[in-house]
């Protein structure tokens, strides 16, 4: 039977991997390609890259590692796919079907749509028709407002007023393949996943749900896997600062009898 996945999510800002907190504070971690090699060495299930650059300007020259500088997101994807032999998802700033094609042609297996899908839902359909539903991940950032999860777009800045459940239903009908659900309130806080909302979201859709936001320890992964039916667990910061955190987390999940690779 298909296994549940543990997925590092890496945020790229102007060619660097950054740590994110509350969607506003970003701390530089290192060179995007060198980091990809490190994750590949950990035998990860999948990698998700989200480009959060405000201005599309990539500068890898200021780096300690001996790599060439890349002048575009295309060459970043290209270089990463040369050292990564697992499914590779790329998102951030995708607004048109040409943006989708560009990333897939450069080596992405899937793309994520967030603001671009919300502003132009037809893009979901176009991407699914051209590359198949399996290639289209809808990334949804939410905050709780009066206890209800509400979709926020534009780097989590813009309150759309739309319920997460309704938006997922629309995405499903348009041919989306997976949902990447991210709690803005918990981003970078390391106080655990939003189990209650994640459960409601998983129950509301047939699509596989990847839950993100709030992991502070491997025990948080275990709790999420035990208490919900998420298809995949995603996290960012925890994998940057703790040595061997990925393989250790996998070992713990398997020891608990959970169906992970």
């Amino acid at each position, binding site marked *: *039977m298909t296994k549940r996945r543990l997925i590092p999510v890496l945020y790229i800002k102007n060619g660097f991997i950054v740590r994110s907190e509350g969607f506003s504070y970003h701390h530089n971690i290192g060179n995007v390609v060198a980091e990809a090699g490190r994750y*590949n060495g950990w035998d990860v299930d999948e990698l998700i890259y989200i480009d959060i650059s405000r201005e599309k300007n990539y500068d890898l020259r200021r780096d300690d590692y001996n790599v060439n500088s890349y002048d575009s997101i295309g060459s970043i994807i290209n270089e990463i796919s040369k050292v990564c*032999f*697992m499914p590779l998802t790329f998102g951030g700033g995708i607004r048109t079907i040409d943006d989708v094609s560009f990333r897939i042609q450069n080596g992405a297996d899937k793309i994520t749509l967030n603001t671009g899908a919300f502003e132009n839902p037809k893009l979901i359909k176009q991407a699914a028709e051209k590359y198949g*539903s399996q290639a289209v991940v809808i990334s949804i950032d939410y905050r709780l407002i009066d206890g209800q999860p509400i979709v926020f777009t534009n780097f989590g800045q813009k309150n759309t007023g739309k319920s997460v459940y309704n938006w997922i239903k629309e995405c499903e009908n348009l041919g989306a393949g997976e949902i990447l659900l991210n709690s803005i309130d918990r981003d970078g806080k390391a106080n655990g996943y939003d189990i209650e909302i994640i459960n409601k979201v998983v129950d509301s859709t*047939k699509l596989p749900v990847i839950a993100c936001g709030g992991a502070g320890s491997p025990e948080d992964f275990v709790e999420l896997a035990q208490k919900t039916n998420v*298809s995949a667990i995603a996290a960012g910061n925890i994998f940057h600062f703790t040595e061997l955190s990925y393989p250790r987390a996998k070992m713990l999940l398997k020891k608990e009898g959970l169906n992970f690779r």
Partner: protein
Amino acid sequence: MIGIVNYGIGNLQSVKNSLDFLNIPNAIINKPEEINNFDKIILPGVGAFGAAMEKLNSLGFAGEIKKFASENKPILGICLGMQLLFDEGYEHGRHKGLGLVEGKVLPFNEKVKDLPLPQIGWNNITKENISPLLENVESNSSFYFVHSFYCEPEEKYIVAANSDYGIKFASIIHKKNIFGCQFHPEKSQSAGLQILKNFNDL
């Protein structure tokens, strides 16, 4: 030297990247007549069975691939590429395949209820028969799958490994010089790279 058949479908680059990473000499085959420059070929593929066969036929690859197979040279089909090796597929109607392996390609949705389709993700394989493709691959290794259809070979002895997604299906086949994997070895980390290495070492 391994040739990767480019018939305008799917992501060839990731297959090429994995062979490059393994230092296996390889090149992309853009014209059917170039097939003869290679001693092994890989047939990749993502998409629908009928559309892919139409491309193989209209570009002139189908005939060259069959000739290559008849000369006893190794062919590895990946994902849809494996399905195309069979007699016929039932994706959006009935379509004739390359016919290098006897059997059919059938939809999961008639047999599998209550599981998401396509199957997307890592699944185990169980070895059924001995194959050089499985050299140094542990039984129970997992590989990355993305598919809604599965292969049903007529001769069970050609099933090198099975996997389970509601039903048991062939995840690796091996009939003389014809090989196929339903999963993506180029996206399956070290176990997948081992399969590609084994194909090169044949």
